[in-house]
């Protein structure tokens, strides 16, 4: 038996638990894996380029375009510009949001994370803060760049400017929507804990299921569709309110926020309760 050396039980390495430390930790995690660069790079690249492509096609075919469609474009050019590259780029955010948490489960990293921070809720909170801020920053840049490209290309047909009613709010709102979408996807990822299932689920919902609800008949279909998270949320990215819209842009964004908060609460509850 070795004689027990007198050793202070306290560690000789300085350590301190702060939320700021957790934020730094999550930032390191986010920036040090390839999927982050891929997703955000795709968003920053696809959004402006598809805006340019679709607006280019629109102006090229301007003379063959029906008068009613031209009116739609000249009536609200901001929404047309922002909407054109949007559909193709938002899956990148769904993927990133799910991956940020689900890949920790698929790789086993979650165990290291929880050993370092057994207070699981603050870990989830730090993840959410870092993810949404990074997505917000990149999305804002992508949305502004897309807007200016689209506006320049449309300038012969219609003047689109940030000073148009609702235009600035729509551009900033697109960034806000994508940031909220990243949190929505994070919550789903934390609940499902599987990358493939989570990504498929979120993208199917956002791109296919939610728009399809529009087809449900009568008042029920109308209301159900209006209050779906992403369908309500995207109103913030449109400059003018559609006629007969049940929600204003900010109300819509609020509805999306409530859905996301509810899902995050469920994710937090499950995270605390389930074995890692």
């Amino acid at each position, binding site marked *: 038996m070795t004689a027990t050396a007198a*050793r202070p039980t306290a560690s000789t390495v300085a350590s301190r638990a702060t939320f700021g430390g957790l934020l730094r930790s999550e930032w390191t995690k986010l920036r040090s894996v390839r999927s982050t660069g891929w997703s955000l790079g795709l968003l920053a690249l696809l959004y402006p380029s598809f805006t340019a492509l679709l607006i280019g096609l629109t102006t090229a075919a301007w003379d063959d375009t029906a008068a009613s469609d031209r009116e739609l474009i000249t009536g609200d050019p901001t929404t047309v510009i922002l909407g054109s590259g949007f559909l193709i780029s938002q899956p990148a955010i769904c993927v990133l949001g799910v991956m940020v948490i689900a890949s920790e489960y698929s*790789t086993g990293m979650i165990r290291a994370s929880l*050993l*370092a921070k057994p207070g699981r809720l603050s870990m989830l909170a730090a993840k959410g803060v870092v993810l949404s801020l990074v997505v917000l920053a990149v999305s804002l840049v992508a949305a502004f760049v897309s807007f200016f490209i689209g506006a320049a290309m449309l300038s012969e047909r219609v003047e689109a400017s940030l000073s148009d009613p609702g235009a600035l709010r729509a551009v900033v709102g697109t960034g806000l929507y994508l940031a909220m979408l990243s949190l929505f996807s994070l919550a789903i990822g934390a609940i499902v804990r599987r990358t493939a299932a989570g990504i498929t689920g979120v993208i199917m919902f956002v791109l296919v299921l939610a728009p399809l609800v529009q087809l449900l008949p009568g008042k029920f279909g109308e209301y159900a569709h209006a209050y779906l998270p992403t369908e309500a949320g995207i109103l913030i990215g449109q400059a003018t309110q559609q006629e007969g819209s049940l929600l204003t842009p900010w109300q819509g964004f609020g509805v999306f926020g409530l859905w996301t908060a509810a899902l995050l609460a469920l994710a937090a509850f499950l995270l605390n309760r389930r074995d*890692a």
Partner: protein
Amino acid sequence: MIEAKNLTKRYGDKVAVKDLSFTVGPGKVTGFLGPNGAGKSTTMRLLLGLDHPDRGTATIDGKRYRELTTPLAAVGALLEAKAVHPGRTAYNHLLCLAQSQGIGKKRVSEVLDLVGLREVAHKRAGNFSLGMGQRLGLAAALLGDPAVLVLDEPVNGLDPEGILWVRTFMRQLAAEGRTVFVSSHLMNEMAVTAEHLIIIGRGSLIADCPTQEFIERGKKQTVLVRSPNADELSEALTRAGGTVTRNDDNELSVEDMDTTRIGEIASAGGYVLHEVVPQRGTLEEAFMTLTRESVEYAGTGSTHDADAPKSGGEAR
């Protein structure tokens, strides 16, 4: 000091750990032994707050893991399954763990040096060999210079050089006064590393004693005796105080009696002896005898195959 009190954990209707209590003291390596599926990993996960016990408590220096504010400075853990994102470099892996509790970058470099990974610090962990992965896991465990170390199968899959390195390392950590709790399903490995053994089978405690004591117990001698007069000889040996087990028509296993005495008794009774062979029990045999009844799945091959599939309890 690690303390488990009445720990119980079930997964579905399968009990992985059953009313398990033990303490692990500082300044020595304590081996946590049991066949695959015995509940070692589950116990460690309960200890580390990753899984929730159904009953009982697990504390480290009197605190539950979840109550530790900067856990890495109190407990270092190496889990059997890799807990690393393969796309992240060794340095960034350690950095994000360190940052979560305000541990500085300098310490990250220190532990990389300590485990000999400095050269590959900026390589992605996914390209690491098993041995390098284990070293990275140990580096993470040492980040906060903890007084308690919990290591799940640290030599699993390592080459002899790696095994020797881990063994020396664990002894050194214990000599510094730390509590080192290390699990293994290999008795011989623990015999040379651990000073104290806690042995479990099917989630329950089987033995909790110094390694030396266990080795003595394992050395209990058995003598194999072959004789055409097995019936009569068996009676005579039993009368003289031996413990006799009948193997077949003319073969006996005799305990509590040495070969000299057996020869004398046979000679006195006029019984013919064909063979008298002392069976020296190995430590591995002692362990297997002890845990035989608690082995989950006795396969056709060796039950000690490191790659044998784990039971539901440990596979999680």
